[in-house]
């Protein structure tokens, strides 16, 4: 029974990681850059939804939509101002720029909303009781949202015209452009989707932690990136699987081994995994051509 409740909390935590990792993996797949600012977009999403619910008194679905809109705009603006001019630059320069954006968002949030943690009321309260097992509605909602997002993204990238354009761009930007695809617009769209997902993840994450501060997003951001690498970066089912597995490993490590070393165990599993399968669980290993 105990094991089952740990498993459920692990899966729901993993679902949050998976939603963040989906955004990460899409952006990486198309722009080939580590967007370190992604975690901070999550934090902005959390603050916007909190302010919408407390200061404006809006109901939570409206607050979530507002957070998604704000984060989408933020993501597109960041991409347009900071990343687009560096499209041809070496990837290390883009990485440092992403770190700069991350610092900027954290410090701007600190100035706007203060450095001290704010209490966050979970968007839905209560729990479902099955026998002796009690599952909070937030957990159930997180898992449901994660599955819906995963399926929607798979269908979108597989079937729709824009999704196909995305896949074409991630394969070969030059060839995609020759086929009449607007590469810049496609990349902007990817950032928009990733940032909207980050807003959703922000609301769910804050509902779990019940608190929020300007650095809330950085550690989940790093872990979600780990999850994306774990599952094979660039792969949507991989990000989903990686996120869930990472959440479960973290919950189990906390419950049975050591609370203090939970993150270390997660990272150690990642290292071992990468040594066995260097391209991640579902990633394709591409041999280099000479």
């Amino acid at each position, binding site marked *: 029974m105990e094991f089952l409740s740990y498993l459920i909390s692990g899966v729901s935590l993993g679902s949050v990681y998976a939603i963040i990792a989906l955004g990460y993996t899409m952006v990486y797949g198309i722009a080939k850059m580590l967007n370190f600012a992604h975690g901070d977009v999550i934090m902005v999403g959390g603050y916007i939804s909190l302010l919408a619910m407390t200061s404006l008194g809006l109901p939570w679905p409206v607050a979530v939509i507002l957070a998604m809109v704000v984060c989408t705009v933020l993501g597109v603006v960041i991409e347009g101002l900071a990343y687009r001019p560096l499209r*041809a630059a*070496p990837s*290390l320069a883009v990485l*440092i720029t992403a*770190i700069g954006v991350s610092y*900027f968002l954290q410090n701007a949030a600190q100035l706007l909303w203060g450095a001290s943690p704010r209490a966050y009321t979970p968007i839905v309260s209560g729990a479902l009781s099955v026998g002796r097992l009690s599952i909070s509605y937030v957990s159930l909602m997180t898992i449901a949202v994660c599955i819906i997002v995963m399926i929607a993204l798979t269908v979108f990238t597989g079937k729709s015209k824009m999704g196909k354009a995305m896949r074409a761009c991630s394969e070969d930007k030059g060839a995609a452009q020759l086929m009449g695809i607007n590469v810049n617009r496609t990349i902007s769209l990817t950032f928009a989707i990733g940032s909207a997902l980050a807003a959703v993840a922000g609301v769910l994450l804050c509902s779990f932690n019940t608190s929020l501060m300007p650095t809330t997003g950085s550690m989940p951001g*790093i872990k979600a990136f780990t999850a994306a690498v774990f599952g094979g970066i660039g792969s949507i089912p991989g990000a989903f699987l990686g996120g869930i597995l990472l959440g479960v490993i973290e919950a189990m490590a906390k419950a049975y081994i050591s609370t*203090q070393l939970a993150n270390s165990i997660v990272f*150690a599993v990642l290292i071992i995994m*990468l040594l066995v399968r260097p391209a991640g669980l579902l990633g394709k290993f591409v041999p280099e051509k000479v």
Partner: protein
Amino acid sequence: MGKKIKSAANRAPRLSKAAKIDYATYLGVILAFAVVTVLGSQGMLTRSFQGQLVPICCYIVMAISLNLTVGVLGELSLGHAGFMSVGAFSGIVAAMSFQASIPSEPVRLVIALCVGAACAAVTGLIVGVPVLRLRGDYLAIVTLAFGEIIKELINCLIVGHDENGLHVIFNFDGSKTISDLGLTENGIEIIKGAQGATGTDTIASFTAGFILIMITLVIVLNLVRSRSGRAIMALRDNRIAAESVGINVTKYKLMAFVTSAALAGAAGALYGLNFSNLGASKFNFNTSILILVFVVLGGLGKIWGSIIAATVLTILPEALRGFEDYRMLVYAIVLILVMLATNSPQAKAVFSRSVGGVKGIFACKGNKAKGGAANG
């Protein structure tokens, strides 16, 4: 791939120029040390600046050593602070353990730096063997992971010393405290778990920092200009071509990585012995990133660039104290603008016309040295 071959080809005739740059670097560091020492003895330096001298020396050594991994070897490392952490805490343990037996502070400092470097080198070897098999972003994420693991392990560490020798326990479940060490009455508590090292004897000095920088320069510059250094740079420029002419990939990658880790360990030991209280969380991901920023802004593969960037960017946030709340925001904006100005084609065209001279300092030319993440 074509660009890199070009940069390798025109390296040979520039050898004398490289030597000139090296000597200028040595001379610059010596001059800076002399000027700061003279100013200090005249009492012309503010107290806060004097407090920063040793950290600046440590960051310079960190930046040079990371430049060896990122700039010269071409592998992106996001966990360099982990090696600094290993060096800092092992150095503190060494210095505190010999407190009774060796009264001379400089001797203890030298021992601490050597122990720090050795422990970090061993860690570098343990990390490097599996990590260097990976490439690009995967390597970056694994170095990040190792940095976090090192941080959490040191957070669990409780160390004390008495006449029976060292006492070490790992506080895995959070239940153990310093009293579980069973120290005798004369024993000293050195590292107290999550609290970190407290009550450390601060024996680091600016002169020691200067000597460490000089030793680092001698090691790194001689390595880079040697046969081994050329092999390492060949691996960076084109791994497959280098392998096909018989360069041992693992050997040279490990050589650069372990040297880099050892130097970071020595810098860490000096840093650790400069503060009486130090927690493991000081050496987190943000510190690794900070040092990476020094390296990238100073120019990949440019040792003198790392020195200048580390100095300027350590002083800058302090100089911006007047802005108080806004200083980190300004820092972030400056960082983004500098990256945009030096790397985007449009800005470059405008920039080179107006402030051509300034650009060279912050040049981060990608075709000179590829970023580790560039080639997955």
